[in-house]
Structure formats: C-alpha cells, structure tokens
C-alpha cells in the first residue's frame, strides 16, 4: 500500500467533510428486529439556524402497532414537541425550543419509532419544514430514510 497516497486521500476526504455545509433535513434509519418488528431512529440534521421543525412519516401499507412512546426521547435539552399517530398511517412530529434557541449545526438525535410490518419498503418522510428563531421558513435539504440490513 502506498502510505503517502492513503494519508493524502484521507486528508482530502476530511477536508471535504469540513467544507460540506449541513442542511436542515429530517433523517430516518430503519433496523429490522425479530418477527417483523422494526425500529426507526429519527434524527434532524441542522444547518444551525433551525429553531423548530415539523415532518410527516408515512409507513408502508399494512404497518401496525406504531409506537411513538420514544419518538422524542433523545431531543437536545430545552427542546420539546408533539409526536402522534394519525389515522393509523402516519406520524407527525412538531418540535421547538422553549427559549427560541436553534438546533446545533450538524446531526441531532430526536428519538425512535417502532412498528410491525412485513413490507420490505421503508417508511417515507414526505412532508417537512423548519423555521428559524424568528418563525420564518428556513431553507430545507432532502429528507431521507435508510434501511440497515
């Protein structure tokens, strides 16, 4: 292995990582456990200007036993919100800070959702918005849900 090349490549990668700007976006990661039960972690990538956000998670057809009890369990200190199941199909989340502070730039953990489904399809975050500390709409990136085997 060319050590010099490897070091240079890793430095380049690190530099690229530093220069990449975070965008406001909800992110999900789904892990399947036993018996078709699935856990989806919820994160919010912040550009540093988002004081509040809301988004919708749409589950695959036939999803059941949607559990929101840990939906907001990992929010940063000072943040609170409402996470509810609507019509047995979707979960909507709205979060803000009691002092109007913004989410730290970078990845912020929100919590977890669990549900049961035999579908191979992942949930979709199809509706979302974030606002800044003045209540104005903040610029948004792309929501994503990844599946981990």
């Amino acid at each position, binding site marked *: 292995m060319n050590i010099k090349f490897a070091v240079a490549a890793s430095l380049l990668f690190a530099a690229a990582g530093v220069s990449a700007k975070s965008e406001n976006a909800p992110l999900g990661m789904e892990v399947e456990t036993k018996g078709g039960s699935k856990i989806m972690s919820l994160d919010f990538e912040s550009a540093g200007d988002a004081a509040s956000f809301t988004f919708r998670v749409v589950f695959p057809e036939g999803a059941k036993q949607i559990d929101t009890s840990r939906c907001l369990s990992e929010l940063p200190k000072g943040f609170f919100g409402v996470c509810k199941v609507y*019509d047995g199909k979707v979960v909507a989340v709205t979060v*803000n800070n009691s002092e*109007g502070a913004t989410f730290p730039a970078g990845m912020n953990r929100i919590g977890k959702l669990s549900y049961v489904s035999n579908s191979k399809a992942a949930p979709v975050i199809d509706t*979302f*918005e974030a*606002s800044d500390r003045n*209540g104005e*709409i903040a610029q948004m990136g792309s929501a994503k849900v990844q599946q981990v085997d």
Partner: protein
Amino acid sequence: MIRKSQLFLAVAALVGMNAAMAACNTTQWGQGGVTAVVGTPIADGPVTTDANAAQTPRYSGKCGLAGDAAGDYVQDGSPLAEAAYISRFYVKPNNTGEAVVFQAMADETVDYAIFQITFDATAGAFKFYGSNGSGGFGTPVSITTANGGAIVANRWYLIETNFQRGAGTNGGTLAVSLIGNRGAANYTLTTPSTTTLTAGNIVLADAGDGVDYVRFGWVSGGAGTGVTVDAFESRRSTAIGSLKRGDVSNNGTCTSGDVTQLQQELNAISANNEPGLKLGQTDCTENGTVTSGDVTCLQNLVNADTASGGTRACGMPI
C-alpha cells in the same frame, strides 16, 4: 339621533384594537358622527407595561377591549341605513345574568335596535333578538353549543351575522354562525353552529330603516366580572369568516415557526414586554389566556396540518 359625517364604504374593514399599535386605543371608533366610547371600557393587552396596569385578554393583535360594567362599549356610525349588513367579531363574556354585547341600531327620531346579541350566562346561550317594530323585541333564537360542547362563560367565541332587509318591506332576516372555545384537543376544522331570525322575526318600524350604527362591548344588562371583545369587522357583502387560530405571525399559514413565535410571546408576557407580543392569534385554546397549553394546542394543530400533507391551513382535517 346621530348625524352622518362619513359614508359607509362598500367594504369597510373596521378592525378595532387589532393593529400593530404600540399603545392600545379606540381611535378607530366613532366614525359617522357617533360617540366613540360610552362608559369606561379599557383598550388593553395582556401585559402590565402598557398604558393600563390591568391585563386584558385579546383574541388577535396586541389589544382587546374590556368592559367591567354594563354600559362600557364603543360605537361605529359608518353604516348608512344599510339594508345589507354583515359583521364579525370575537367576544369573551364573563358576565352573570344576560348581557347585551352587540346592537345594530336604526337612526330614527327614537333610535331602536334592529337586532341585538346577548350572552345569557344562566342559560349558557348566545341569544339573537330581532326588533318587533315598536321599540321592543320579538322572541329570540339561541345558540347553546359550539363544537359539540356547551357554551360557557369566559371563553372566546366568534360570531358572524348577516342582516338582510326585505326589498320594500319592513321585514328582515338575520343569519348567524358561531364558533369558539375549541381547546387544545379540538384542532381540526370544525363546523360552526348556526341559527336564523327568519322573516317575521325582525320587524322594522319603517320600510326604509337599516343599520345606521352599532354598539359593541358590554352594552347593557347582566352583572359579573366583565365582557371582552375584539376583532370587529363589517361590510355590505361577502362573508367575512374567522381569523386563523394559531396563526401567531399573522401571515395566513400555521407552521412550526408559529410555534416558535408563540413561545416567544409566552416569554414576552412573563417579562411584561409589550413589544414582544405577536400580531396574530396566539390563544390557540381560545380560553382567554396565553400559556404553555397554547403551545401544545398549536403543536397539535401544526401536527394535524402536517399529517394531512402540509397544507399549513391552520387546522384542516386529516
């Protein structure tokens, strides 16, 4: 009898106590040659640092108008014998007995109310009376429920009325819709309660009589703590409709940003900071106070919007 100095505009938006005023006032009242303020109603907001130390609830903007005794009200004389008169306002009655909160008056040798609206605390009802043509009233119609629950005192209610005089006759009709006190759990679109004073239930003294001026506030009757009113608007045609509950920023939509702004208003109220009050509708529960419960209410409301696909329409059903 009054003398008119201004014509009633075809679309007159009289938003009493609802503008971004640094200090609450009643300067928008008294058009058309009527006395603006009768008695001693207080134009005020929910902090103690403005002109009045008392804290007055409001539905929209920074100020409401509170009467602490019968005979505390404002008047608008910009109508001119209107044969068609539509009005919309918010009222938070905290009276006992039966208090008159709105009168639409005819300007005659002896003025009389074409119709009037009361809150009857004993009956738990808003009552709508039509003139009997000889200085009194006929049998009223009532609304006793809003959003499926009983009407109670000390909560905000929207009342919109549509008066129409029959052509060439001394008869009229009044269509009424009412909504309010929706609470934290009732965040989707709700159907207003309605009633009507039908032909024969409003009798004018003369066929040419119409709405010349209105009285608004704690006009008369009843006892108790007070009557608070806000967000009056009137016009000749086209329904006015409700203000968007939870639209804290007053931009026509409800987003997570309104939740942030509502939280800021809570902090402003705690700090008695009048400039920090918001210009929209912060009392999401419509219970007369702005608290953390309103934040939860608004989060529920925004959630419902989000669940319906992000209409941001302040309470659309999913």
